């Protein structure tokens, strides 16, 4: 049976063949194919994001506007929390037994071995009182984190708030570095300066087993990076002035924007009604946000940059400047107060020059001025002439920052509306419109919309005699940081410096002896230059507007005040603006003006006769 003995070779060959196949397969998965190594890393090494300390925000005088508040979450790992002394626990943490059971159930349902929050947002005091008892309860530990905190109740609209990133944003490639559950600035400065405030996240690699349980740092933290705290911001806001402005606007609807003309820095930014920024910092965020969103006064509406009103009489200043620049009028040009052209409800001296016209806000004067501005006789065809005139006027108006975003460092700024040939072509058909179709623009009504910010900026332009810096609310990144370069650029209007003086004379008159009389601050030696306005409101009482800058020489503050449904601007907005100016320039309110303060605080502005 020799041939059977040879079968040993077959058997040996089978052994060797299997060994060879296995060695080759192993070579493939261990040496050639890299995917298993990657999978192994994902399996066992968990990346933990170390959240940085978010940057703080200071006001222009170094007062803290936004800070981080420590809060403490009591975490639980159900597996380690075996048989806690429930009654003792409830006593220490001051919660009812049912709540304990309920929370325990929730935690277990989430994961038996992974930590989940048991009690959230304990204050420092609460944390201190329970700290010593913690060792009695294995499986429970404290996780400290920070939320935004405010020591004041101001500036909520400008500061904005932070919140968890939305699912929609997570899909957006712009937010690719964010992970679900992370916080980011959602509105205001928090959103606009997110990249500076957020800081740099650190990464810690730790090893976990198949159930995700911590097994210590990976390679003793060789690859870990530390988080870098976010950069602090210095705001241009004067917190004291801001708080005063909010106090004055209490119970009213509207805006106050104050700008330092020489820099474009926003000193005060009031959107009324306002809300306490502390409402949107955490625990009650959802509830509070919903309440704010639902309230009928549209509290969350960021009026200074989002509300667009017809500028009313204030626009006459712009019209005068443009017409002087184009040589349509001079400071001494007069027009008859012809009430057949357009209503002028007040009897006043004849507007024999621009100064008188502005002082009395004479409607027929500006009707005629604007007609001459639009119809300069560049074409015999009145339609074409009107188009040429409007296009030319448009070029000027854009340089004042109207009909365009000024570029403030806050999100959702609105452009407002400025009439263009294109708009009227759409309304009336190409070349089928002329001055008579839009004469109301002459007095700041009609197809016009400007934001309170744009109007405050107009005051800065006039205060500067012809230029502005883009209004901004953050002066620098970092406490000793340089001012941001994009806010260092002077934007010149198309109107030469020399044309501003007559307009300023008139504005001086407005306050000294005209419609803005209530804003007078002569007794403290401050010359306020201002202009009242009434913004027509088809839905109810007109809105009161007053714009001003002061002092006349070397102006320190330019301001726009809007009080919705308060009628004539001289009665409500003018005293309010002057109180702001006085407060800012003298740090106090002089005794004789206390009654104006009381008057504004009381806020019973009965709509008086309309003034255009």
């Amino acid at each position, binding site marked *: 049976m020799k041939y*059977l003995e040879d079968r040993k070779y077959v058997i040996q060959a089978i052994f060797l063949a299997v060994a060879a196949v*296995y*060695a080759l397969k192993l070579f493939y998965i261990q040496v050639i194919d890299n995917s298993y190594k990657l999978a192994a890393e994902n399996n066992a090494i968990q990346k933990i994001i170390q959240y940085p300390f978010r940057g703080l925000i200071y006001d222009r005088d170094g007062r803290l506007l936004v800070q981080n508040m420590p809060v403490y979450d009591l975490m639980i790992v159900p597996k380690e929390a075996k048989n806690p002394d429930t009654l003792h626990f409830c006593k220490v943490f001051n919660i009812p037994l049912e709540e304990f059971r309920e929370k325990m159930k929730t935690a277990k349902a989430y994961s038996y071995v992974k930590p989940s929050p048991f009690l959230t947002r304990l204050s420092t005091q609460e944390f201190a009182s329970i700290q010593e008892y913690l060792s009695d309860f294995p499986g429970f530990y404290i996780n400290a984190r920070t939320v935004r905190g405010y020591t004041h109740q101001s500036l909520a609209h400008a500061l904005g708030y932070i919140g968890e990133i939305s699912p929609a944003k997570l899909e957006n490639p712009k937010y690719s570095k964010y992970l679900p559950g992370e916080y980011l600035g959602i509105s205001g400065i928090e959103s606009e300066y997110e990249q500076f405030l957020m800081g740099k996240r650190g990464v810690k690699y730790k090893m976990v*087993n*198949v*159930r995700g349980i911590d097994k210590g740092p990976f390679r003793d933290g060789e690859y870990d990076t530390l988080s870098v705290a976010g950069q602090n911001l210095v705001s241009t806001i004067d917190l004291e002035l801001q708080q005063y402005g909010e106090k004055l606007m209490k119970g009213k609807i509207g805006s106050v924007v104050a700008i330092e003309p020489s820099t474009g820095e926003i000193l005060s930014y009031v959107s009324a009604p306002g809300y306490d920024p502390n409402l949107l910092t955490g625990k009650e965020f959802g509830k509070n946000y919903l309440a704010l969103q639902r309230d009928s006064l549209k509290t969350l509406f960021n009026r200074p940059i989002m509300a667009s009103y017809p500028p009313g009489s204030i626009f006459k200043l712009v019209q005068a400047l443009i017409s002087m620049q184009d040589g349509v009028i001079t400071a001494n040009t007069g027009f008859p107060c012809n009430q057949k052209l357009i209503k002028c409800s007040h009897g006043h001296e004849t507007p024999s020059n621009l100064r008188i016209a502005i002082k009395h806000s004479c409607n027929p004067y500006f009707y005629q001025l604007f007609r001459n501005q639009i119809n300069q006789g560049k074409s015999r065809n009145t339609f074409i002439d009107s188009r040429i005139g409007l296009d030319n006027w448009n070029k000027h108006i854009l340089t004042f920052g109207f009909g365009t975003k000024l570029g403030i460092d806050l999100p959702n700024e609105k452009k407002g509306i400025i009439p263009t040939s294109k708009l009227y072509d759409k309304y009336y058909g190409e070349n089928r419109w002329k001055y008579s179709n839009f004469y109301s623009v002459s007095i700041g009504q009609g197809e016009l919309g400007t934001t309170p910010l744009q109007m405050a900026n107009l005051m800065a332009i006039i205060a500067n005699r012809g230029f502005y810096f883009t209004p901004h609310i953050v002066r620098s990144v970092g406490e000793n940081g340089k001012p941001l370069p994009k806010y260092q650029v002077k934007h010149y209007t198309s109107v030469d410096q020399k044309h501003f003086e007559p307009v300023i004379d008139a504005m001086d008159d407005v306050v000294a002896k005209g419609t803005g009389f209530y804003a007078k601050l002569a007794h403290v030696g401050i010359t306020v230059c201002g202009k009242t306005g009434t913004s027509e409101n088809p839905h109810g009482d007109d809105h009161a507007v007053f714009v001003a800058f002061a002092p006349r020489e070397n102006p320190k503050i330019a301001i726009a005040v809007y009080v919705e449904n308060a009628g004539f601007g001289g009665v409500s907005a003018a005293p309010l603006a002057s109180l702001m100016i006085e407060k800012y320039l003298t740090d106090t309110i002089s005794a004789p003006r206390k009654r104006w303060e009381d008057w504004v605080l009381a806020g019973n502005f009965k709509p008086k006769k309309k003034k255009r």
Partner: protein
Amino acid sequence: MMRPKKLTQNLDWPTVLLYFLMVGLGWMNVYAAVYSPDHVINIFSWDINSGKQLAWIGTGVVLMIMILVIDHKAYDSLAYLIYGFMILLLLATLVLADPVKGSRSWLVLGPVRLQPAEFAKFATALAVSKFLSTANLQNQNLQDHFKLVGLTLLPPLIIMMQNETGSALVFGAFLLAYFREGMSPLILIIGAVSVAIFILTLLFPKLYLVAVITVLLGLWLWANQRIFFRKWPMITLIYGLIIGMIFSVDFFVNNVLQEHQQNRIKALISPEADPRGFGWNVTQSKIAIGSGGFTGKGFLEGTQTKFDFVPEQSTDFIFCTIGEEHGWIGSVVVIALFILLLLRIVKIAERQKSVFGRTYGYCVASIIFFHFLVNVGMTIGLAPVVGIPLPFFSYGGSSLWSFTILLFILLSIDSNRKMDLTR
């Protein structure tokens, strides 16, 4: 009663050396498998598997000495008795055992838990060797054939009833030994072809397979037309059987196999279809081994096998630890150790003068080979997940003891081969 001097002279020391090398490496890897870097426990600690394994190794050495000291003729003469005792033990286990993970295969004796199915292997090997030393596979005595089939199939049938399919499958390995003793190679070929068709059917669409087989057969017949005219009924029959098999695979998988067995088949074919479900073991095991690279992560440096990603770490999936921590080099060393041992056993078997000794030797080689084939195969995704240990490496007393007994009975018989000659 025996002569210690002759024993040490005649003992096959290379095999003993291989045995201790493998058991020692196994012990270290069992420690690595249960090692936890943040809670280091001494390798000797009784609390972890490596400590217990050391106890099993120690008692294994005692067993080994006993086996070598006992008169080698006992294994021959007591073969059927041992076999009968094992059958009774298997039946007893079926009745007495507490179910563990759905299997009724553990017998608890005080602090020791044993799996009689493990010991049925050497008992059956003894019995069939004994039977073959009296009968002859080449004669046409059908009765003898049936007796052999009965002897071989009785233990796995009982083990199947214990729900230990893996251990039952091991008995298929005896075919290799029978082949050496004269069984027709057709049976091996048919077996191999069946497995090939089974796997191909799972991998490729049935119609493609039928088409390919038909075309190949047609080409072959066209080239060898004379064969077709002479043997067409046979060829048609084989063709029909193959086609029939292809179409009955689905039925077999879905209706004959239990769900967990179906899943293991699916995991073999496409583990990525459900990596967290039935594909978990295979996927994690491949990740662990694959991440080892060429030289491995180093002893106790594995991450996959440390943190419980691979289930049954120290027992059935011990090869993952080797692959992850010692890389391709380590894996190939282990494979080489097995091949050296297997070839050595074949050499020992061939030098036996008795049919009993030779057949037993081949049985030992076949059983160890089958375990190696399936165990390593399943960790690298070349074989379905079948819960059988890697001989000498896997943690477990029953397994270690049974392989020690299996191997050292052969060495005992072998050390006395010269005396048989003089008998």
